[in-house]
């Protein structure tokens, strides 16, 4: 087989492998596989002094963050399913064990592949945590001194940003207003007192909005047990129009609604936000920190799918509020990570980026096309070479044998014996 064929055939699986292995967020089996030997290598290191210990500590923290950020969405699910009992966190048990327990508890939420990834990740975290503990014992303070108070590195920031990005860290514009009974209301107090706030926008003459008020009242009672609340905003009552407030209260009492309904000024940020809505009813889910979680639910929540979407958002908001507590507890006990070394940054950026795989796929492609260059792959019978075509030879020896007349197709004026062919690279007059 010629070199060109081999080269081409070799390039194709290499290209395919690169594209598969490097596809950004999900295909990270390769990454966890490759980090395993690295982790093993790191855990095997025995630092000689406090500085090296601190360095190793930082590297291990870096690794842990990479494990989380490589499968952000999956780990989010795990955190959501985590037991909200903070007692488990502070009793000194290994974080990796805690994660493994949570994954086991929630194993029906994941597919077999996801479970494998998660378990592998949790196992690695367990190893890392073991090593970190032993480092702390040997060199107490190596975890806390170097980077406490330092700015958090790109990957942890990226991870938290990733967590928030999935909940779209858009904050609901803060406002001060009143409820329909005239009591003052402040957005910070309103949100921070509850793990989740379901904000429903409606108006008095909107039939679907009024129709779902009963369901919202029921939801309010359910959420009260979980530490959440429903808050209504009637867009007709913005600016405190007394007539509209009276109408709204009338409708609310007819429907048996007890949860708070508030209004604020229409030229405030929140007021403009409300005026930009054109679809009613619209429901936003807001977590304890005032961040909007996910996309708004447009339309009444009475249908099953909308209700399911709303429940998902509520759970996510509760988890977000919890997660901030969980992460803070853990990260408080460990130090913030120092900036990761540049090579790690480059590789992880390429692997996480969307155009990374494209770039990495370009290289084998270029090699393949280059392999087709004439100097690497000499022309064979019938091959087109530029605008010419290699004529069939009689044998590969390239002998020129006499023919009966000149060769019309290749304009050769040599007279050859009839019945023989010859080999010349010549411009064809008409090649179809």
């Amino acid at each position, binding site marked *: 087989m010629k070199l060109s064929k081999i080269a081409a055939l070799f390039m194709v699986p290499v290209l395919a492998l690169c594209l598969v292995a490097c596809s950004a967020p999900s295909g990270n089996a390769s990454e966890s596989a490759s980090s395993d030997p690295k982790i093993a290598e790191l855990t095997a290191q025995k630092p000689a002094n406090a500085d090296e210990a601190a360095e190793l500590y930082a590297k291990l923290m870096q690794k842990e963050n990479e494990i989380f950020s490589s499968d952000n969405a999956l780990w989010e699910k795990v955190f959501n399913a985590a037991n909200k009992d903070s007692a488990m966190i502070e009793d000194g048990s290994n974080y990796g064990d805690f994660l493994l327990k949570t994954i086991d508890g929630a194993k029906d939420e994941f597919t077999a592949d996801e479970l494998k990834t998660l378990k592998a990740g949790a196992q690695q975290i367990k190893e890392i945590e073991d090593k970190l503990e032993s480092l702390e014992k040997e060199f107490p303070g190596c975890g806390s001194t170097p980077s406490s108070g330092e700015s958090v590195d790109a990957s942890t920031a990226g991870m938290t940003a990733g967590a928030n990005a999935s909940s779209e860290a858009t904050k609901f514009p803060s406002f001060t207003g009143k409820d329909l009974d005239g009591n003052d209301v402040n957005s910070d107090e309103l949100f921070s007192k509850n793990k989740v706030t379901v904000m429903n926008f409606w108006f008095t*003459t909107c*039939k679907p909005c009024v129709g779902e008020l009963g369901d919202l009242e029921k939801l309010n009672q359910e959420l009260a047990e979980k530490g959440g609340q429903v808050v209504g905003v009637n867009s007709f009552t913005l600016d405190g129009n007394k007539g509209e407030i009276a109408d709204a209260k009338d*409708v609310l009492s007819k429907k048996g609604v007890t949860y708070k309904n508030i209004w604020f000024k229409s030229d405030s940020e929140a007021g403009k936000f409300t005026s930009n809505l054109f679809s009613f009813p619209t429901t936003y889910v807001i977590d304890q920190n005032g961040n909007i979680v996910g996309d*708004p*639910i*447009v*339309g009444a929540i009475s249908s099953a*799918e909308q209700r399911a979407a709303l429940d998902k958002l509520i759970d996510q908001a509760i988890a977000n509020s919890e997660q901030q507590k969980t992460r803070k507890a853990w990260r408080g006990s460990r130090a913030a990570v120092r900036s990761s070394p540049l090579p790690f940054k480059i590789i992880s950026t390429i692997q996480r980026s969307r155009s990374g795989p494209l770039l990495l796929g370009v290289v084998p492609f270029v090699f393949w096309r280059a392999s087709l260059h004439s100097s690497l792959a000499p022309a064979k019978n019938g091959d087109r070479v530029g605008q010419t075509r290699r004529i069939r030879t009689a044998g590969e020896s390239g002998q020129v044998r006499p023919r009966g007349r000149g060769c019309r197709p290749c304009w050769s004026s040599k007279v050859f014996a009839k019945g023989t062919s010859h080999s010349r690279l010549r411009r064809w007059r008409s090649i179809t």
Partner: protein
Amino acid sequence: MDKRENTASHVLARFRGFIQAAATLITNIHLPNFAKGGIYQGAGKTVCVPGLNCYSCPAASGACPIGSFQSVVGSSKFNFSYYVTGTLILLGVLLGRFVCGFLCPFGWLQELLHKIPGKKFSTKKLKPLTYIKYVVLLFAVVLLPVLVVNDVGMGDPFFCKYICPQGVLEGAIPLAIANAGIRSALGQLFTWKLAVLIAVVVLSVLFYRPFCKWICPLGAFYALMNRVSLLGIRVDACKCVSCGKCSKVCQMDVDVVRAPNHAECIRCGKCIGVCPVDAISYRYGLDVSAEKLPLTADKK
């Protein structure tokens, strides 16, 4: 050959397609909103447009008269809308079904669909179906939103909710494409309305303006006003040679010579273009007493 009269009528009839396109554009002027996934909510939306054009169309510059009527009448406070009905009566008297023929976007859509080549069927034998639109107007637009109410006294806009294909075409589909929240709210009702839209589209290819003839409540209202409208069609009895070409070419199945201001006539002007003796023309005005004009066909 006689000097050609009625040039204004001929010009109007010839440029009807352009006028329809311009009217559709003016009724839907806020084109960038298609990309934004929201609708225009400014002051223009308080005015009703003459044709059937959904309020929820991202580009819509005004409100749909049928939709506005239903939303006012369906609210718990009111049972009748003077503003919308008044606007409709005004347009009916000033223009009558000229709106249908020249200014309605959905009518234009149906005509464009009818131009798609294929087998075309005549609706001459389906005349009884034209009464369905009056039933739709009476029940879906006027009575049901008033009578079928919830515990707070609010009714649904029945025509908009269950029947109108223009709402799906102009409102639901563009908004669902650009707005994720609305996309996730689509359900069974959307499936039904989409089926209605597809049915109307298919029928429009086979028949001429089936929605205008058989279903449109706005067309029904303007049809009622057609006989008292200031804009009408005049057939000069002196010139008419009773060749029958006008009635043959009329796609709304109107006998032009006998009843040029029939409820079904959308003033498209095809009869004007085809009359060999130029007997037919548009006429506008109150001053059409019998003494001033020569005897016309519809006065007989």
